[in-house]
């Protein structure tokens, strides 16, 4: 009897200690995860804060009206970035959306579409500097375009086409089959169904993809160094044989300039880039948020 009691007591004690150690291990696990999350948040806050304070100490509003030639402004870089990005939006938009439409809507799923989709995915994994170098060799040197707007447009566009294509394809694949069937039941022609029903409901997804592509192209430096080069003067709409300035260049090259007014421009440009990217990310979120309410999927699923 006494023996049995001690065993039972020992068992209970053992069970207790196991329970405690499991509890401790559980808390440890989630503690480690919380620390990881902190290490994700800290760099974001630190980068935004670091760049903002750096720029705030040297910020001048007149940088919007002077060019870098005067060492007092970024006007040429700002105009150049908008010029480059606008062109990329058109080229990458047309090609990327076309690519997504073909893979998702026009072609039947086959080996061909798999190859095309893989090519686009692989393209998105190639380092941007390789794009820049190929653009330099093929467009700037071989085709004699020189450092030019056109070379920058083409190189950056192919850099971001995979993102536009992927999001277009995703958005189209999420349009419910019932929409297409409904259109056909009304006697609409195939192209009409695509234009009026399918594409229209896919617009938010496509827009988000385009916005992300623009954010990427605004932030690229490496491919532009080789294709657009840099100019201290306002860019023109001349397509070839004219270097184009852009905002990432001062960030990359001016930061260790001995001249204070020039090195300050690096921080200012970094802040401008950060603000532009933040605005684009918020715009993408806004598109998703406002359209989710009226999303066809949501209506059909009865959510």
């Amino acid at each position: 009897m006494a023996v049995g009691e001690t065993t039972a007591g020992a068992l209970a004690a053992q069970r207790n200690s196991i329970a405690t150690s499991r509890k401790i291990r559980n808390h440890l696990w989630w503690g480690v995860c919380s620390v990881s999350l902190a290490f994700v948040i800290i760099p974001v806050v630190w980068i935004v804060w670091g760049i903002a304070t750096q720029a705030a100490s040297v910020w001048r509003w007149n940088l919007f009206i002077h060019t870098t030639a005067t060492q007092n402004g970024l006007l040429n870089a700002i105009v150049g970035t908008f010029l480059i990005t606008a062109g990329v939006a058109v080229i990458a938009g047309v090609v990327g959306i076309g690519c997504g439409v073909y893979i998702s809507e026009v072609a039947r799923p086959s080996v061909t579409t798999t190859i095309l989709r893989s090519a686009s995915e692989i393209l998105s994994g190639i380092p941007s500097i390789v794009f820049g170098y190929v653009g330099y060799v093929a467009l700037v040197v071989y085709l004699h375009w020189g450092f030019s707007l056109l070379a920058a447009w083409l190189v950056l566009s192919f850099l971001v086409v995979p993102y536009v294509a992927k999001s277009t394809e995703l958005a189209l694949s999420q349009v419910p089959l019932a929409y297409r069937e409904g259109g056909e039941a009304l006697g609409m022609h195939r192209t009409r169904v695509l234009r009026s029903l399918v594409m229209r409901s896919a617009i938010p997804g496509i827009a988000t993809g385009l916005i992300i592509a623009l954010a990427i192209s605004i932030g690229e430096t490496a491919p532009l160094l080789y294709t657009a080069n840099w100019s201290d003067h306002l860019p023109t709409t001349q397509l070839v044989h004219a270097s184009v300035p852009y905002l990432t260049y001062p960030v990359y090259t001016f930061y260790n300039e001995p001249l204070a007014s020039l090195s300050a421009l690096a921080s200012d440009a970094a802040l401008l880039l950060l603000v532009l990217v933040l605005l684009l990310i918020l715009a993408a979120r806004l598109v998703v948020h406002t359209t989710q309410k009226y999303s066809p999927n949501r209506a059909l699923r009865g959510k």
Partner: protein
Amino acid sequence: MTEDGLPSSGSEGTAGGIPQSPQTPLPPHGMQSTTSMEPTSPLRLKLRRVTEISIIGGSAISAVLPLIALVAMLVVLFLEAIPAIRFNGWGILTGSTWNVGNAYAAFQHSHGVTHLVGAAYGAWPLIVGTLLTSAIAIIVGLPIAVGAAILVVEKLPNAIASVIGLFLEVLAGVPSAVIGLWGILTFGPWLAAHIYPWLSHMPNVPVLNYFRGNYNRAGQGLLTAGLVLAAMIIPIIAATTRDLLRQVPEATKEGAEALGMTSAEVFKTVQARWVRTGVIGAAVLGLGRALGETIAMALVAGGIQYVPSNIYQGASTIAAAIVLQLDAALTDPTGLAVKTLAELALILMVITLSVNVLARVIVRRAAKGAVLPVGAGF
């Protein structure tokens, strides 16, 4: 429309199940909208055919362009690099000397290539720098990204998860030049002032002895570069892991919970097995991004082409060298230096291509048809 060799929708020329010839106008039913939707006059039919053909043709051309671009890039790089490949041989992978040569002496010929006296191109330090910075980035970034994703999916309410999603998007969206600037003006000096003094007193035992040594004030070097890279690949890995974890069926988790497991044990038995392969794929994808990162590495790594002997020493990567060496390369009148940069770009492209294909194969196998936002970067 079958005469185009296209899948017919089957609804051509039919209304209400009654076959009609396209030329026959619809009976005036008062449903004029139907008439306006379906053009019936020959002109409109022709217009519709033009629209259809232009949609199909245009989208097909767009769809082929990325493939053409991919092949063209490989071909252009290879053709450009041929003289450099003949001159450098395998030495580019093993040599450590990088010398454009003497531009003022007479040109020399060897291996059928004109080059400068003393020209030698060895990329071994660049290869080591690329692999080491990426390795540090994965070792530091992977656990942080995965841990954060686990907490976000399993414990945090949706509103907070959405805010953290925004943080990840911002981190992924910050231009690499801006991260580089932060690394060189803020992060590097901070590490050199507060972390490296402490870290450099590691015991003199294997592995840890790489932490012993001198560091510079700006913190430029291998470890800083690796840590900056870690920040750049965390969003890719974290977002993918998060989306994978959200696909784990609730019932399986509930089953494990019903057995009395703690939430950590549930995770290890259910979710961890479910997402394991996908996370490896995401990590390899992050590795691909780290290997190809250029501007941030050009700013933070130090741009020094020697094999580093401790973890603080300046280094350079293949991608950074292509940017940093261009000005020097353009001074080579024989053009061999620029061609060697093409060879470097080719090496980099082959490395990242294989890494990315590997990652996508792994992720696809893990996802089994589920659509993942992998590679979207956001």
